[in-house]
């Protein structure tokens, strides 16, 4: 490509706020969030679409934001880990991960939370198998997953019974 670098205007709604930017088409969605918007809660782990640390919710689906160009999300609605907390109070999923010791280093946690949130929207009372299947694209190298499963079950119960 010999000409000037192309810049594409995009409008992306993130956690309820619409952001307008002009970006290079090769910018990945995770880099858009971290570098352009300054939302660093979404982590870059493997950067190869395996680990799921960069998982966020785009138009209702959990997706890996390292394997998506930001231009592909133009017009879309995104929820990231920063969108979970409301009025200074942690989301029941976040509380449950804390209480059930569902994290150690915490690097994979934002991705775990976002995948779990999509599961709970679809299945309010998931079994262990549902949870493990839902999180099969999210790797954790600390916990051994047991407490992550417990945390999602605890959050599901909390959400079903209402706060």
């Amino acid at each position, binding site marked *: 490509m010999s000409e000037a670098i192309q810049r594409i205007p995009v409008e992306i709604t993130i956690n309820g706020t619409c952001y307008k930017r002009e970006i290079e088409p090769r910018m990945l969605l995770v880099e858009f969030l971290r570098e352009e918007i300054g939302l660093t809660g979404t982590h870059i782990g493997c950067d190869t679409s395996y680990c799921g640390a960069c998982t966020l919710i785009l138009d209702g689906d959990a*997706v890996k934001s390292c394997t998506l160009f930001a231009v592909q999300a133009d017009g879309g609605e995104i929820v990231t880990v920063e969108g979970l907390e409301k009025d200074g109070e942690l989301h029941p999923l976040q509380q449950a991960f804390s209480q059930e010791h569902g994290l150690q280093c915490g690097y994979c946690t934002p991705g775990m939370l976002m995948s779990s949130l999509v599961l709970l929207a679809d299945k309010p009372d998931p079994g262990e198998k549902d949870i493990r299947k839902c999180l099969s694209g999210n*790797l954790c190298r600390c916990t051994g997953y047991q407490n992550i499963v417990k945390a999602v079950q605890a959050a599901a119960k909390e959400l079903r019974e209402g706060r």
Partner: protein
Amino acid sequence: MYPAPFCYHRPGSLDEAVGLLSELGEAAKPLAGGQSLIPILKLRMDEPTDLVDIARLPGLHFMQNGDENMRIGALSTHAHIGRSDLASAVPILSDCANGIADPQVRARGTIGGSVSSADPSCDWPTLLYTLDAEIVCHSKAGNRTVPIREFIRDSYTTILDYAELVTEIRFKAPPANSGGAYIGFKKSASAYPTAAVGVQLTLADGNVCQNVRLALGAAGPRPVTSDEAERLLCGKVLTSALLKQAAEAIVEAADPPADARGSSDFKRAILRSLFMQAAHRAIERAGGAQIMGKHEYV
């Protein structure tokens, strides 16, 4: 990791898309779900000058259970196919669609993209061999319909012209007393399968095999078939001994490459085992059993 720079285009219609691809030339690439293409671009294994984003093109996102043919629009995601009535009616589709990678990848990846990439480890090409599917392709010259076995020419190589797009996948609805199973063996959910087997068959009275299609995935540059193995089974009652003979015959035709996922011998052993599992599950399903599919993990 940043891909090399490229120009981005988002045409509004199929005709505009193939027009653009034709105008931009061979160095341009279509982008659908991006789940195969984006990792390739990030590793700079390919550096297209232009990407034509076809993900939002209207009319290519459908599943239809017609009288003659079952039809799947090329932009249907693995997740949509896995949840569809079509997948309930043809369980081998459900096995495949719900077993590809992980939920995040299934939410974005498309059947058209999988077929067009012709990655020897991709699940859809192997699966579509077992259904004798046809691929509908569209270019400025119009439509052509190509059997999957002719569509895939070699690893990562199809008959698609650079300015041609897959628009639809179609296949005949399996007749009564049919059953199928597709099993991929993966090291982890997100990984491509180490090996995969698809079996689709129809039983006649007395559990005699009337018709059968067999295919192995990740077992050579293209999905592996064996006329000999299919002939062994046709017209016979399917005993375990006979199935083992067929497994030997088709695995003999396989040429699984030794790589990080295992040696050739290891993969052959996995293929034999998967073949027996898939064949037994297909037979049970042909008999009316409702069995959920699953990919096997190490």
